[in-house]
């Protein structure tokens, strides 16, 4: 046994308590000019900002062309940002080739999905009922998007733009979460055959880039199906996205399962609980709580991953924007259109990441209260 070594550094001198009555000015000074180095960096950045900001404001706001009178207005010397491209093309960017007169249906479907996400965002709604609500919601969305029962029938090849992105995203998460739970539990299972199948699936889909998964789904599956059978292209893409998401999310959930002390499993067993009651009442509630931030992170990534479907010929929001910019009259102003696209993507992803940090704090608080 080695001898314990005690090592003491110099004692840190006591500091004055931070002033509670700090004014805006002192707080700003502390934030921006605490040390000479910080002050210098602040000054340099302020100068850079002062150099760029007026030009940017002039380009983006003052000289900008707002209305789609004529693309020629944007080519006039001195014209700034051509936001007219967005006001001219936003319907195509948002809805792709969806029939113009039916856009309200796509809009409604989109709002339904967003409402579903807002509802699911509150931890108090995290019940088994949520899955049923989502299935009902998706059925309603499918009715709006496919028609029938009094609405003009449409096909998935008419879908496009933001509704397609959101449906893909909602579908990925709705079907991917149960799949990932199943795979995570399967990987930890005592049944060898089941365990190996789950490990195989996880490793296969984690070992392939999403792009390859999508190409497999769109090129190989139809050939295997043989004569006369086709599965809708959208469904094929969705299946690929679900498997990919499920494989990644299951590893996150497995992390949560492993983070729990063995004592939790053992005491649940000692109470006489069999596998499923133990998992549902003791293990999963704790394990999932641990991994919520990581899961939300993966969900945000799933949202951005939807843009990959453009490579197999689906008009997602990005694809529809590209298609809208194919118009020779407006193709020069793709920058402005992409800025609009960025703003929309950012709004979604930023909301989700703010939500993640909110839910993290909230769960942390309720955990501390529980202890």
């Amino acid at each position, binding site marked *: 046994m080695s001898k314990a070594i005690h090592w003491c550094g110099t004692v840190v001198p006591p500091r004055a308590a931070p002033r509670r009555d700090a004014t805006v000015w002192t707080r700003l000074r502390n934030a921006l000019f605490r040390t000479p180095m910080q002050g210098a960096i602040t000054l340099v950045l302020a100068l850079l900002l002062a150099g760029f900001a007026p030009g940017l404001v002039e380009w983006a706001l003052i000289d900008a062309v707002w209305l789609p009178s004529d693309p020629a207005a944007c080519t006039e010397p001195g014209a700034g940002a051509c936001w007219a491209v967005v006001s*001219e*093309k936003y*319907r*195509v960017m948002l*809805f*792709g*080739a*969806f*029939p*113009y007169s039916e*856009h309200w249906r796509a809009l409604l479907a989109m709002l339904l999905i967003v409402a579903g996400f807002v509802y699911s965002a509150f931890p108090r709604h995290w019940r088994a009922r949520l899955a049923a609500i989502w*299935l*009902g919601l998706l*059925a*309603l969305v*499918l*009715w709006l998007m*496919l028609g*029938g*029962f009094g609405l003009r029938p449409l*096909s*998935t*090849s*008419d879908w*496009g733009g933001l509704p397609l992105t959101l449906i893909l995203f909602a579908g990925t998460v709705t079907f991917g979460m149960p799949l990932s739970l199943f795979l995570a539990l399967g990987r930890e299972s005592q049944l060898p055959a089941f365990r190996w199948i789950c490990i195989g699936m996880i490793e296969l889909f984690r070992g392939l880039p999403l792009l390859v998964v999508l*190409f497999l789904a*769109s*090129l190989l599956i*139809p*050939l295997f*199906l043989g*004569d*006369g*059978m*086709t*599965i*809708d*292209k*959208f*469904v094929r893409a969705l299946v690929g996205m679900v498997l990919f998401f499920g494989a990644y999310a299951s590893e996150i959930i497995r992390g949560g399962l492993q983070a729990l002390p063995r004592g939790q499993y053992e005491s649940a067993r000692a109470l006489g609980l069999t596998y499923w009651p133990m998992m549902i009442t003791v293990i999963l509630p704790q394990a999932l709580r641990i991994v919520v931030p990581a899961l939300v992170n993966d969900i945000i990534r799933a949202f951005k991953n939807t843009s990959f479907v453009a*490579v*197999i*010929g*689906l*008009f997602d929001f990005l*694809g529809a924007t*590209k*298609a*809208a*910019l*194919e*118009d*020779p*009259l407006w*193709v*020069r102003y*793709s920058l402005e259109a992409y800025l609009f696209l960025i703003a929309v993507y950012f709004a979604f992803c930023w909301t989700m990441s703010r939500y993640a940090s909110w839910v993290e704090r909230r769960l942390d608080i309720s955990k501390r209260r529980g202890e």
Partner: protein
Amino acid sequence: MRTAIILSASALLAFGQPAAADTLENVQAAGKVTCGVNGSRAGFSSIDSQGRWQGLDVDTCRAIAAATLGDAEATEFVKTTSQTRFTALQTGEIDVLTRNTTMTYSRDGELGVDFAAITFYDGQGFMVPADLGVTSIEELDGAAICVLPGTTAEQVVESVFSERGLNYTPIVFQDAKELSSAFFAGRCDAHIQSSSGLASTRATLAPNPEDYVILPKIFDKDPMGPVVRQDDARWKDIVAWTVHAMVTAEEMGITSGNVDDMRETGSDTIKRLLGAGDTDIGAPLGLNADWIYQIVSQVGNYGEVYDRNLGSGSPMNLARGQNALWKDGGLIYAPPLK
């Protein structure tokens, strides 16, 4: 609710048309023609500000719908990429591929598809920045060349340079627009593409069109047209004669504007063509007697379609060139419709 879910699911997982069956019957049963299109190529297939499909390929598809169903709007457009287009056709996901696809021996022979007709004659050209001072391919030795993978352009660069013993560095892009912006940003010395593509790229994307020249020599032949599965000869005939009918209408001066008058007052030949004569011109193909009338009145003749999408009536403003009628010195020629 459960019924709704099952119905929605069955709508998504429905069996497609059997690939080996009668496409015309399937089209008539479905009430629509499903066409595979590019979706991102101005002049051939793209969507306008109202989300409406337009372009030469789109109008070919509409003409097929008008001929077979009497309604040019009874179409469904499926966006395909250069990798997915033939699979989509082979598996029956689409009835006809109208996606600026070049007819070649290997595609025709190996892929189980048939090229029904030619709707656009194109060729490969090189575009270079004018300040390079290049006037011929020989001066491009060692150049970096922007190409799209798996396209005719890629093969043409390879053969043109190896025949002349020249070197080049291919710079590969997945997306035509990325390729163009990279070229105009100076990433490569030359841009090879179909001459129609080059002209539209230069007209729309170049910061200053005069700064770029298209070398006069056109390589290779790019005859493009609708593609069908090769196991359905009658469907191929229908697609082929739809195109021939549009060309014939232009030859005879029948336009969407005057087709109603011509049907009443035209010569016997014209009346017969438009389904107002004594013989049923639709019978040989199992179509309605007025199938050509439907094409011309709803979509237009070949010249109208060309002008609207690629020619003087479009921002592309491409001259007819090789795509003029044979009697005007072009290559567009239809066998007699009799």
